[in-house]
């Protein structure tokens, strides 16, 4: 038997604190696919919220802590397009000149994969089994779509599930209005953008909207539940791994 693929989970702060069940789903899913998953201790956050608000020294400090944690990882799997983008696209520029972690940052950038990309592009998975049933629609997270140029992998995975009907979301590529601190700096504008997203989700008749970013999920589920909508919002990993693993 060939050596199993080894992957470290970078769980992200939002999943760690608010959505641990997403992390559990990923671990179960990856193990089912024969991946040896580890979870390096000492993780906090990738620093994106600091970076995007302009607090670059603070973000760099966080990055300098995170990078060594994953220095021994063959692959780093991240269940978030925005965090993966931060690590892949911004870490090298942020701490690249730092003699202690500069080269590690570049290595980490290369080895880091957003979950759907890891499944499709690294593991070569396109068809999975799940006991999840029903009609779902997919929302493109901005950083995954435009930051990492990925629109196909999540759709391939969802489309390949027996028992799951994937319907295209009108305006799937439009922002949900989250934008990190934007959502609390300008809550009215943020919610107004969200209302449009929710109207589009409801148009599809799907029972569930799927995304690959906990930020978008927090925003969309926040709006859906406030409106009393029966539509659920789930992370891709939760659909792929099937029955509620919590």
């Amino acid at each position: 038997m060939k050596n199993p693929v080894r992957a470290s989970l970078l769980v992200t702060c939002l999943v760690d604190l608010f959505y641990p069940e997403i992390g559990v789903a990923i671990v179960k899913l990856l193990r089912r696919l024969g991946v040896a998953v580890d979870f390096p201790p000492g993780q906090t956050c990738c620093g994106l919220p600091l970076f995007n608000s302009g607090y670059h020294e603070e973000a760099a400090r966080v990055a300098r802590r995170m990078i060594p944690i994953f220095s021994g990882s063959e692959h780093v799997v991240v269940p978030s397009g925005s965090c993966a983008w931060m690590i892949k696209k911004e870490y090298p520029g942020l701490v690249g000149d730092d003699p202690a972690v500069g080269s590690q940052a570049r290595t980490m950038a290369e080895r880091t994969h957003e979950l759907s990309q890891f499944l499709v592009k690294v593991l070569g998975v396109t068809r999975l089994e799940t006991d999840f049933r029903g009609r779902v629609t997919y929302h493109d997270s901005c950083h995954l779509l435009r930051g990492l140029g990925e629109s196909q992998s999540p759709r391939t995975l969802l489309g390949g599930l027996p028992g799951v009907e994937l319907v295209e979301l009108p305006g799937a590529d439009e922002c949900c209005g989250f934008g990190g601190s934007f959502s609390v700096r300008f809550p009215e504008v943020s919610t107004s953008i969200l209302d449009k997203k929710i109207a589009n989700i409801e148009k599809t008749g799907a029972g569930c909207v799927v995304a690959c970013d906990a930020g978008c999920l927090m925003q969309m589920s926040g709006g859906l539940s406030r409106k009393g909508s029966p539509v659920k919002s789930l992370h891709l990993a939760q659909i792929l791994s099937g029955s509620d693993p919590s």
Partner: protein
Amino acid sequence: MTASPRFGERAAVALKDAFLQEALEIATTKFIGLRKDSFAGFPEGEGLRDQARAIKEATLQKLDHYLEQVADNVERLGGHVHWAATAEEARETILGLCRDRGVKMAVKSKSMATEEIELNEALERAGVTPIETDLGEYIIQLAHEKPSHIIAPAIHKTKGQVADLFSRELNERFAADPEVLTAAARKELRQKFLQADMGITGANFAVADTGTVVLVTNEGNGRMVTSLPRIHVAVMGIEKVIPSMTDLMVFLAILARSATGQKLSVYTTLVRGPRRSGEVDGPEEFHLILMDNGRSRQIAGALREALYCLRCGACLNVCPVYRQIGGHAYGETYPGPIGILLTAMLKGDRAVKDLAHASSLCGACQEVCPVGIDIPRMLIALRHRLDRERIAPLGERLMFRIFGRVLASPALFRLGAALGRLAQRPFVRDGRLRSLPLLFGRWTRSRDLPPLARRTFSERWKDLA
């Protein structure tokens, strides 16, 4: 003018304007579709956008050279060149020309550069009547408002409002029919074109190699203004210069497609100085005002790429924030995501204290930009400067410093989570947080929040390992 601190309030007003909401949705959706269709049938578009970006960058690398060249060539063709370091100097140049040449009325074709220097107000104060001749701008001028979109200045007005406005201002009752209203404007403005002493335009491009100033319009007012009055003055930001006619063709191929989905705008006018001998029409005098007004500071600055901007408006149409609030809420000459950068460029960082954050950084703007300006990256850079220059509020800077400490320490991170779990207890209802105090209330005002999980993933990992 420091309009920006009240961005949030202006945005809230815009969100309550039901007509504006509908108009924005229809207009931006239409422009997005037109642009998309136009590039879909144009496989060479991607390559041309890369090339256009490279031309802009190459021009900036030798901007001094190209400015000298364009000036020399304009003068060779019999035109006059003026160098305006500031908005003030640009205005004074035009006012001086008006005084010396007895100009009483000036017709203008749509120009963001003259909006930027608030020329109309200055002309009026000096006793010169400025007439905006782009239909949208004409409507705005009659209504004493400001444009709300770079290429569709009056998208916030209904045809009923325009009919009332025209009926009042032109002393004749007009039906709320775009055809009728357009005909009324044609008749009224035709007289102005023929009477005016001066035509004032901006410039979409200036070709250094030939001294040609290029105007792109759909209505033909750009041609009128450069053909009929005896003096033509073009006001141009220094970043609009491009090296050659060959370069111009690259830009023409993508500009209208990005703005309105047209292959070319109806009129592209290449102005080569004043009327030549034997010509029936065209101005006796041609003046080109090359304006800096804060631009040169960014050649080596963080906003360099914003100097590539063609003012096509594509980034406005796709911006989720612009689409919700429209142009006026930004409170500045240039709205939308690119407008935030241009405002910072022209007025300094303090002017965008709030505006710099008026973006979810979704990246849709960069994706459609014909010259690939990385707007999100520059917004982040601006935010960084707001912190460094201590323009951001002290409370915010402190909060992010503390936040930074917490995220950099697993122990503090765990402690924070534990405290949060305790603090949220009284607020959890049916597994949701529906109303929270303080900053968190800004979220829960309109959305639910999931509570912090009873056990974090880090704690649950032990069970999985």
